[in-house]
């Protein structure tokens, strides 16, 4: 009797194993047989934090599915950091989604080396010929092939609260000296001058990059990174010195090294700080986003980063393409996936302008659309830009980027001298 019970137990286990195995092979059979095709797509705009982006993506997917019979899009959404981790784990086990999002240059490189992404040159020469702003698709180019279709284009500018500036009779600064004066006046009146969330580190890097650009010109930082120059260039050391000058005069909010960018942003948006250097992906918050009070949106202006000691070109920007689309090399539905990526980019180009208020990497016909003033101004600046320097941590390979970001935090925390700051970079870069 007991033996029979034991046998029954074992039998149940085997049965359940059989059922599980049966289920999994069933699924595979479904996806490969029949005319139906499924494109797996992963993106990083969850509904909670990027409602408008999320909605546009859903609309695009719906449009694509209705135009293409028998093709379904299998969607997975993760937030930024989780997205990066998951992409990495999936690539290790060779299970990348058919279409997904990637960043340019340094982030892209290991995936291209590992032959995970497929070249998209045929799309660029075909459907998407001449539709990108120059310099954006190029950032996704490695060894002559392009591996990503850029979606966004961003430049960093200083947003400021006009109401606070008016209250203390201040003007948007055009030079570093004027900026110092503004900081001084605000500090005297107990207003935190600049919101900075340097826990995220790339935020501080923006300040450093701009100072380097103004002092040493557009090429000096890029050259140091691509090794045609040195990081111990006097201009790069002086830029670091200027950062500490700003820190010493309490330009940034208290405890900035422990604040995230989100926290800094909320200080700016709650009118607790007067200025905030961020890229134009934040534009909707100051133009069209209905969740932000109209009064605040009206009071926000922006100015390009000031010149330093009369030097520097205010039409030179720090920025670059944000995320772009890749198509996996091992995709079983590569043709459909490419078609979807191309379709996505084109629809995104139209919808992102009108519905999300961000700047796409595709060319925008500003004249025919009704756009917020600030948006048009930024577009004009972009058209007149003499140079856009790609974010330093994107330009660098991943481990040098980590050194750079850690050093930025030390520099802002005045734990390291400008000379040592440059030296650490030089060592990390030459060790490559």
């Amino acid at each position: 009797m007991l033996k029979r019970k034991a046998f029954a137990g074992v039998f149940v286990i085997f049965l359940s194993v059989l059922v599980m195995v049966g289920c999994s092979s069933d699924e595979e059979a479904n996806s490969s047989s029949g005319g139906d095709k499924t494109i797996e797509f992963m993106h990083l705009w969850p509904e909670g934090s990027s409602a408008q982006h999320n909605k546009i993506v859903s609309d695009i997917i719906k449009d694509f599915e209705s135009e293409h019979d028998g093709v379904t899009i299998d969607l997975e959404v993760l937030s930024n950091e989780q997205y990066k981790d998951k992409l990495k784990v999936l690539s290790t086990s060779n299970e990348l989604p058919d279409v997904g999002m990637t960043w340019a240059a340094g982030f892209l490189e290991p995936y291209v080396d590992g032959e995970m992404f497929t070249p998209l040159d045929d799309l660029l020469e075909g459907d998407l010929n001449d539709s990108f702003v120059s310099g954006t698709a190029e950032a996704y180019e490695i060894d002559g092939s392009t591996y990503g279709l850029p979606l966004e284009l961003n430049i960093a500018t200083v947003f400021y609260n006009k109401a606070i500036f008016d209250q203390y009779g201040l003007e948007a600064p055009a030079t570093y000296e004027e900026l110092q004066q503004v900081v001084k006046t605000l500090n005297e009146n107990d207003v935190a001058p600049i919101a900075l969330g340097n826990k995220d580190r790339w935020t501080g890097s923006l300040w450093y990059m701009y100072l380097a650009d103004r002092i040493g010109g557009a090429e000096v930082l890029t050259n140091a990174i691509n090794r045609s120059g040195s990081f111990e260039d006097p201009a790069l050391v002086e830029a670091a010195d200027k950062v500490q000058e700003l820190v010493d005069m309490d330009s940034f909010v208290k405890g900035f090294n422990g604040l995230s960018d989100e926290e800094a942003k909320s200080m700016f948006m709650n009118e607790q700080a007067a200025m905030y250097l961020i890229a134009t992906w934040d534009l909707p918050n100051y133009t069209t986003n209905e969740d932000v009070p109209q009064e605040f949106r009206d009071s926000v202006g922006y100015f390009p980063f000031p010149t330093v000691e009369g030097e520097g070109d205010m039409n030179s920007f720090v920025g670059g393409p944000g995320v772009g689309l890749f198509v996996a090399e091992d995709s079983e539905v590569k043709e459909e996936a490419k078609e979807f990526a191309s379709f996505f980019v084109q629809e995104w180009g139209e919808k992102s302008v009108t519905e999300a208020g961000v700047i796409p990497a595709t060319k925008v016909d500003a004249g025919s659309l009704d756009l917020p003033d600030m948006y048009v101004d930024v577009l004009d600046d972009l058209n007149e830009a003499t140079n856009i320097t790609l974010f330093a941590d994107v330009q660098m390979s991943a481990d040098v980027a980590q050194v750079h970001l850690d050093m930025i935090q030390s520099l802002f925390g005045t734990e390291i001298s400008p000379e040592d700051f440059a030296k650490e970079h030089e060592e990390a870069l030459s060790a490559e």
Partner: protein
Amino acid sequence: MNKVMSNKWIIALYVLPALLLIAVLIFIPLILTGYYGLMDWNGIATMEFIGLENYINAIQDAKFWESALHSFLLALFSTLSLLVYLAISLILASKIKGSDLLRKIYLIPMLLSSVAIAQLWIKVFNPSNGMLNSILMALGVDNPPAWLAEPSIVLYAIFIPILWQYAGFYILIYYAALKNIPEPLVEAARIDGATPLQIAYKIKLPLIMSVFKVTIVLAIVGSLKYFDLIYVMTGGGPNGASEVMASYMYKLAFSSNEFGYGSAIGFLLLIITLIVTVIVRKATATKEEIQY
């Protein structure tokens, strides 16, 4: 039933599912981690065998040892805080008013997820709007520190929520152990004229010593591999001032694209934790267990 259990094949069969699960989820990844540590690998492209180079580099890596020091500091503080939890449990277990309610209150942090706790304490520690600094300023402190931004403070600032988070867990364990002490023993001591302090010290403590030892091991091992709050609250910053071994490993593997090196650090973390566990077990071992 005895007949079934005497059949070795049946025993093996029953043990098998659990064994398979543990092997697949724990032991195989463990061995693989050690193996990846021998590779030069960015986690994406093909790997290249480089022998023990990663391990040698890790042993010479000042940043790794700094993060190890932070982990050991956390272990030290968690162990010391056990004494506080023990004191609280002793009080709770003696029949005082509201002990039931208090016990539940102490347990609340355990019910929250680590990320929620981290978000909560980020707000508490906020340098200009945070609760802590608002109170300090109301008390007349002119320039309260920016808790999560100062390299010399940040580590200790994060220890507070970590210790707070686990307080309920240890209090619960001690409370259960104390409740298990037979009442006649305490009664007899009281009749003999022992003071409450003496009862706690001479009767209760020795009787729950085995539980206390287990919690020491738990606290130390838990601290050495601690990750969550640090990752969310500071990401190990500013510039490594609050980095612990696990967050350093994560950073190398996932941010610096040094999967091989990160794996090596992960494996060293395992070895260090193993060694410490053995030492602690040896140090707290006694020849005879007290029986009641």
